[in-house]
Structures are given as C-alpha cells and as structure tokens.
C-alpha cells in the first residue's frame, strides 16, 4: 500500500501548494502525480488542487486571506492545472460544455471574472474569454458564433451593470436556449431576476467565494458520477 500512501502525499502536496501560493511546488507535485501509476490526472486536480482552493475560499471568507493572496493561490492552481490538463480523461459531470465570458463595456475590472473563469477551466469547459471592457454587441456575436452553452457577464461597477440587460434581451431574442449568468459587485438576486438572467453571483467578496464554492460543487458531481460507475 506504499502507492496509496504516496498518492495521499502527492494530493496533500498539491493542496498545500495552492494554499501556500507556491507555484513551484504545484508544478513539482503535478509532475509527481503524472509519474505515479494509479493516480489519475482528474483526481490530482479535484482531490488536490481543488481541495486546496476550497480551503483558500474558506480563508478568504474568514478574512485571513485577501485578494492578493487569492490571486497568488489561483496562479499556483493554474501552474498545476497546466501540467495535469493534457492528461485528463473525458469526464461526464453533466456540466461539460463551453462558455463565453467577459466584463461589460465601461468596466475594466476583471479579477472576479478571472476567478470564475478558473472554475470553468478546472471543469474542462471550452472557455472563450473576451476579456474586459467588452462592447455589448461582441457578447451576442461571440455567443452566436461559438454556440456556447453559457454566457457569463461581469460588472464590477453599478455604472456598467445596466449594460448587461441589453445583452440579455438581445441574446434571448436570437438564442433563447443559452444559459446566462451575471456577476459582480452590484449584482443582486433582484437584479438577476429583473434582467432575466439564469444565475448570479453577488458582490465582490461573495462572487469570489461563490466561484470557489462552484468548483467545490463540481467536485461533488465528479464524486457522484464516479460513485455510480462503481
């Protein structure tokens, strides 16, 4: 059972690398995970990197970590993810798909958007990242071009939030089946309802914590899917 112990050790190393925002350690541990027979890349991601990020989310909510720490932890996660991703087997989580994501015109804040994007990267989505300060028409255009399952709009400022409604109205007319998520500091449940969005993540702090929780729920889905197989 030496191998099982070794697995545990590597997963713990991946987890700690994310928590301690140590990119080098994340790369090293990801490499070790690939070399160890019996440890799947998927498991290394979800039972190592993601578990670490969940702990980071907890530390963030407890105000032990702030945004700078969160960004560094995300870098560590990506460092590991980049090595593991080419080795991931097809996973049926019931959520696989593609997403168009960006920050609406007038808004140059993209930290929240990038954390949400990380969630999709972890889940193996095809991500079309339009960046920040994106003209409203561009969202509609890209969604239609890529036929993505999801459209995610982000606004950090109240002043740019109103643009989201225009995108939603326009895209509903042209493509009623796409799921739309909105997020950002001024977004509330009321706003999401009023604008006709399918999902939302409110306020800067919550949006970041929520995004991390969503990665967590992907992990649950994965466990469930695998449980069924057995």
């Amino acid at each position: 059972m030496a191998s099982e112990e070794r697995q545990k050790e590597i997963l713990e190393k991946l987890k700690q690398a994310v928590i301690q925002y140590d990119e080098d350690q994340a790369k090293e541990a990801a490499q070790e995970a690939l070399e160890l027979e019996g440890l799947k890349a998927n498991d290394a991601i979800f039972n190592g990197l993601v578990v670490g990020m969940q702990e980071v989310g907890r530390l963030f909510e407890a105000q032990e970590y702030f945004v700078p720490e969160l960004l560094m932890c995300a870098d560590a996660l990506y460092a590991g993810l980049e090595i593991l991703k080419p080795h991931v087997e097809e996973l049926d989580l019931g959520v696989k798909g593609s997403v168009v994501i960006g920050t609406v015109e007038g808004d140059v804040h993209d930290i929240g958007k990038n954390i949400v994007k990380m969630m999709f990267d972890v889940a193996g989505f095809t991500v079309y990242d339009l960046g920040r300060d994106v003209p409203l028409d561009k969202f509609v255009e890209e969604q239609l071009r890529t036929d993505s399952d999801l459209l995610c709009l982000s606004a950090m400022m109240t002043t740019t939030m109103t643009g989201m409604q225009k995108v939603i109205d326009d895209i509903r007319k042209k493509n009623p089946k796409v799921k739309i998520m909105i997020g950002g500091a001024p977004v509330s449940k009321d706003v999401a309802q009023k604008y006709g969005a399918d999902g939302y993540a409110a306020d800067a702090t919550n949006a970041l914590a929520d995004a991390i929780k969503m990665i967590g729920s992907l992990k649950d889905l994965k466990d469930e899917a695998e449980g069924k197989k057995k």
Partner: protein
Amino acid sequence: MAETMTSRERVLRVFRREETDRPACFSGMGNVTTEGLSKLGYQFAKVHQDARMMAETAASTPKLFGYDCCILPFDLAVEAEALGAVMNTYPDSADILYPTIKEKVIHSPEEMETLHVPADLVERGRVPLMREAIGLARKELGETVPVGSYVLGPFTLAGQIMELNDLLKLSFKKPDKVSKLLEDLTCVIVAVAREYEKAGVDYLCVREMGATSDVLSPRAFKSLILPHLKNIFKALSVPSVIHICGKTNDIVPFMVESGATAISVDQKNDIVETRKKLGPEAIIFGNFDPYNVLVAGTPEQVRETIRKCLDSGVSAVWPGCDIWPTVPPDNFNAMMDEVRKYRR
C-alpha cells in the same frame, strides 16, 4: 425650518465642527445628473474635455436640487492622463459610461521603477482644463455653493496606471517595490491637488477605494497605504476628506490617523460602531447607497435611509460613491427635503 446659511457656509462650518442650521448634504465625488445634462443639452461623453461644459454641468446639480456642493471632474483619469495614460470617454455609446483608462503607463512590474514623472506634470493632460473649470464653477456659483474636487489615493492611482492584478500580487510579494511607486505617485497627487487649491477649491477628497478591506487586509493598509496618505494630507491646506468604499470598519482609525479633516465611508460601514470607536470629535461623512437607494429606491425609501444615516451619527449626509446620473428628480428632492426637516 428656514435655512439661514448658504451651502458654502454650512459645509465650511461642518469641516470646522461648528453648528449648522440643518445637516449638510453634499459629497466629494461626482454629482452629474442626466436631468442637468438634458437641461444643458450636453452629452455625458463630451463634458470631460471642455472646461465650460464641465463647470456648467457640475454647477447644475446644486442649482437644480439645492445640493450643498459643486464637484468636478466626473471621472477618475485626470492624474493618470497627466502621467501619459490614455482615456476612453466612450463617445459612441448611447449609455452613460464613465471614462476608463485604455492605455496604461506601466506595462510590466519592471517599469514600476522607471516611472517617468514629467517635470511639467501640471501642464499635462487635463490639469490645465481642471484649473479653468474650477475657476469657472467658482465664478458661476459665487460664494453660495462650495466648489470641491477630488484626487485619487496613491494605491488607486497605481491601479489606474498599471495592471491591477500585478499591483495586488506585488503588494503582498514585494511591498517595498510597491511602496516606492506609491511614494512617486504621492508627489503626483500632491502636485495636482495643489493646482486645484490654487484654482480655488473649498475642499478636496482623496479617493482611495482600491485599498478597501474587501481587497487589502487592514494590516497591509496600515503598513503600505497609510504612510503615503499621511504625506498627502500633510501637504494639503484646504479641508480634506479620505474616502474608501466597501468594508471599512476595521480601518476607520487609520483613516482618521491619515490626517484628513473628515472620513467618508459607504453603506457597508456600520456608522454606529464607527462613531463609538472614533468618538464625538471625528467628522464622519456617509453613508447611503447612491444606486440602490437614490436611483432604484422610492422617495419614501430615500427619506428613511437619510434619516437612518443621521440617526446613526454621521456628521453630514454624503453618498457612498458618485451619484449615478439617472437619479430620479423626485428622489433627489426627497433627500434634500428630508435633511431640511430633520430633527435630532
């Protein structure tokens, strides 16, 4: 109660901790309204780059609603532009969009050390236009309404001229490097603020929202931001305000320690707690939600919110951020009516 003071007298007395005829209701951040813009026939994207249009637009808010101040500019790009950044005013957008920076000054962490502060900084970008606009606003409003302006805090300005992601990570990994940049930017901010003082502003607000506790730890605020804020307020001669939005309850003592005459916080701050912490002498401005209450609320919700601010112990009613232009006139009027009626 009949008003016995002009807005200017009232506001200046608030800064001196003197009694006023009624609570002051004003701000140190933008107050442009679509009501004012349409009366003047101006498009929002155009008023940032013309001194006369800017002054008239800024003066329209106290004229239309009896608001206790006239504030200009309306955007957060003046200092960054003087350093060489390029602003986008979204001239083609039908919506109201605040200008943003489309071309930064520092493109990599290495360039932080080689930031070039032009010797003729105050003749660059829109600094001369700001001097002219402040003078025009003064002339237009005479002694009745105070004319105020704002500059960015050093951390927030750093976020305008370089990638925010890099700035935030470096503030943790290489605080000395960031502190050196903030030192340079402090000189820029003081130079611009002094020009505004010479042009005749009655007070100045320093907006340091980038260092809110939603983003930076109170510990980092104290060690990395506070020393530079102190240097800014030491250099100012008009009454001053430090504004930070979002979570601020843990940093209000540092905000006072910065040396600003008054502190400004938004609706996320628990004013009762803050008042208890800072004592009766502190001048605290706040703290209503300028969008969800003033724009999206009903006049009755506006009145309730204004009463709550005053009951909690603010020294003057003041929005948590810029007033969002589409504020319904009924709501603005309800706010002003409520401060006129208020009895402690």
